[in-house]
């Protein structure tokens, strides 16, 4: 039998994970993304946390996927060769009345079946987190919370997917979902992009903050989405050891609050704010004076010793939010059209569980049969070699193999020329692509030394002229043309 065609729209962490998961079956899977690379939308700018799943309201779609997703991550990151650290999280109380919330949280964690959670006294919290404010009254500890690099999960899932037969079309924007009438009802027939038409039996909408636009192209039940903006402050590695785990305050009504956490590469991240934007502000990722001020003030109240002179950058990210504050996952009234949308927090955490659910349950339901397993599926993606993390003798062996392992391009993070070349050969043809693949220019000088070198390497490897090299997406050319033109 001819393989059924499945098209996934959006290569964020959800779409990429689903695409890879579908490759485990005898299906013809295609991933379409409007950006130049995977993981550069919502996935790129969030807190990068694998949540414990203790606080999701029992009965919500979120609660169904979050804790399961968390339990799948270690193995997933192992398979995909992505860094992952299970450092645990604290929700800290600073006022007497917070104590009640902490014990409620503890009860909820029991209901949600989260292992290992504990209530800690102020003394115990201070012992484990010496830089927490003196005002702390106690904390709720969840040992299963973790940190990772979300964009790397998306990029790695795509890379591994391709190895297992995934077709990808990037820099293509979906402009229509085509349907046909058969036997009296409408059915998905294919996806029209600004470049081509792709036939499909099943279309999965993972378009992040654009998911409602895709839904209206399909003409199914509307999802009431709006972007919610979160602003962040990232600090230098010198600040990364201020906290050992993820530090949440007792949340407000809207979000989990403004937190402090170490990043996977050793920096310190503060944020996010939670600002609801109008529907159409899908690209409104500007930081604001008020937002940054709020992040700073809130985190200063919790943690001592934050030194803003060590700011690396401020940035903002969007997450899709609905009035129900819940995911929209599953079949729709249009046969063959599936949503994996409204992936607010904990979307990143839930991604592997949602991918599994879509591939094992929703797609078979839509097709009306369970596709055969792909016996040749290889789940392993070889992890990038990071010479700077190796023993000197091992690094030396690499240099014997290839001299470019001995040429440092990014001085702050000690990233070698070979790592940049590998990233470019794996499809990172933009400055940000290289940055997110390798961590080059992620450090304190923010590309002050390596940007010109990265531009040269991309140009040399791809043949793209200097003036056509982009920072990230279409229209983000970083250079203009020859001098004295």
């Amino acid at each position, binding site marked *: 039998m001819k393989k059924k065609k499945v098209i996934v729209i959006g290569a964020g962490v959800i779409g990429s994970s689903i695409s890879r998961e579908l490759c485990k079956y005898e299906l013809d899977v295609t991933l379409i993304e409007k950006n130049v690379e995977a993981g550069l939308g919502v996935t790129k700018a969030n807190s990068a946390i694998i949540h414990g799943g203790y606080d999701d309201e029992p009965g919500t779609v979120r609660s169904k996927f979050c804790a399961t997703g968390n339990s799948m991550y270690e193995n997933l990151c192992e398979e995909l060769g992505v860094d992952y650290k299970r450092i645990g999280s604290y929700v800290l109380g600073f006022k007497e009345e917070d104590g009640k919330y902490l014990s409620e949280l503890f009860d909820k964690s029991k209901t949600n079946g989260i292992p290992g959670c504990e209530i800690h006294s102020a003394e115990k919290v201070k012992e484990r987190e010496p830089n927490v404010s003196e005002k702390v009254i106690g904390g709720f500890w969840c040992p299963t919370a973790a940190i990772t690099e979300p964009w790397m999960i998306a990029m790695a899932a795509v890379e591994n997917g391709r190895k297992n037969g995934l077709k990808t079309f990037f820099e293509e924007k979906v402009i229509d979902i085509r349907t046909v009438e058969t036997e009296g009802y409408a059915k998905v027939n294919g996806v029209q992009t600004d470049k081509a038409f792709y036939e499909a039996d099943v279309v999965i909408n993972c378009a992040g903050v654009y998911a409602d636009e895709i839904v209206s192209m399909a003409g199914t039940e509307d999802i009431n989405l709006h972007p919610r903006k979160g602003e962040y402050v990232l600090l230098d590695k010198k600040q990364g050891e201020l906290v050992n785990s993820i530090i949440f305050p007792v949340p407000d009504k809207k979000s989990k609050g403004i937190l402090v956490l170490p990043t996977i590469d050793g920096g310190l991240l503060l944020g996010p704010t939670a600002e609801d934007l109008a529907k159409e502000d899908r690209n409104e990722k500007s930081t604001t004076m008020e937002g940054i001020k709020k992040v700073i003030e809130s985190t200063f109240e919790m943690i001592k010793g934050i030194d803003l002179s060590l700011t690396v950058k401020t940035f903002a990210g969007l997450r899709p939010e609905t009035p129900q504050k819940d995911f929209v996952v599953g079949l729709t009234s249009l046969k063959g059209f599936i949503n994996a949308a409204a992936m607010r927090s904990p979307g990143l955490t839930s991604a592997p569980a949602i991918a599994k659910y879509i591939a094992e349950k929703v797609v078979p339901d839509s097709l009306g049969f369970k596709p055969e397993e792909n016996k040749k599926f290889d789940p392993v993606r070889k992890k990038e070699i990071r010479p700077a993390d190796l023993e000197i003798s091992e690094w030396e062996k690499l*240099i014997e193999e290839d*001299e470019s392992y001995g040429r*440092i391009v990014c001085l702050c993070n000690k990233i070698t020329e070979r790592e940049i070349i590998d990233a470019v050969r794996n499809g990172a043809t933009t400055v940000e692509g290289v940055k997110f693949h390798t961590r080059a220019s992620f450090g304190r000088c*923010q590309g002050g030394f390596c940007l*010109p070198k990265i531009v040269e390497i991309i140009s040399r490897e791809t043949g793209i002229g200097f003036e056509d090299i982009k920072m990230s997406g279409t229209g983000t050319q*970083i250079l203009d043309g020859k*001098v*004295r*033109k």
Partner: protein
Amino acid sequence: MNIIKTDALVIGGGAAGMAAAVEIVERGYKTILIERDNNTGGVLNQCIHNGFGLHVFKTELTGPEYANLFQKQMNEKGVEIHSNVFVLNIDNENKSVITVTSKGMCEYRTKVLIMCTGARERPFGNLRIPGDRPAGIYTAGVAQKFVNLMNILPGNKAFVLGSGDIGLIMARRLTLEGMEVKGVAELMPFPGGLARNIVQCLDDFDIPLHLSTSVVNVKGKKRLESITLCEFDKETREPLKNSIRDVEVDTLILSVGLIPQNELIEELVDIDCVNRGAVVDNYGRTSKEWIFAAGNNVAVYDLVDFVTLEGKNAGQSAAEYISKGNLPEKYREVLRGENVGVITPVRVCTEGAPFTFFIRPKKSMDKARVIICDGLKVVTKIAVKPAEMIDITISSELLKEIRKRGIEKIKIDIEEVK
């Protein structure tokens, strides 16, 4: 791992490192200079404008010409130059330096180490300016490399934030290369760069300089589209809301300060919190006796000539240390008066030879006096300003007097003469 033994190891082949290496090799010691780039010269290589060398060579040279004079001397006198070498760490106990190169790892064992690692530019992200994060925002040094070494322009219409020298130089360079430079903004009420650069780079090209003004927002979803300027009250520093205006540009160039680079030694030696550089005495010696430091990693200087002089001084002292096995131990701390910002050295051995203080005043004064040790020496200077360092030489006689009087702290004051 390859092991190389030497008398002296210089890290960094910019102006300070080259000068230090020449001094040491001239005194007959094996000297190796390691450089992470392909060539020595450091940032001088991309500074194709002239104006270098007025103090040291009494003539105006371009950056590459200035570097070339030292490169020649290094070759003639036999400094071993190891380029494309990246330092991973410094082992204080074994006096060794572990490096990585395209030929493998290499350990250098040395009697003295001279750190000449320079400074890096303060990046955009550090400023926490709100707004979008579009393409088209560069530090002046990166833009300079694109334009001068890769012959490619960053954009069409530019604005420069910060009036440091390199920002002023780039305003002129971009104009000459065909870009429109719409202006330069400086948050302080006075310019950050040298007076001659204000005249030659801005005034001569009709580029406006906006003092007490900064960029408070950047807009552009893809490439930079506009920036928002705001003026600040000179006294209260409060933003003047009526002054807020947008300027349409596709390129923003930043010249907002240099940060001394001491990542390799900051755990090992004392760091001065005002200079943000390694603490050194008048021998150029850090708080570890075998490690010397000179140049912009000690304090950010405004003239390469000063950096060269400091490099020479450190080189001479390092050679003396190799020969004698020690240098005078006892030093006196330098105390900053109210108007003294960056100053080097911050420790002084009064047993030693004459030396020069480089001092950055905190504010502009039409006429000022520099007072050393509460009046032991007073130098009157016309028009001091934060953009220009004052150099004051301390003679042997003065050092003798300090010793005789048993002065324990060397106090430096700058006072306005009314």
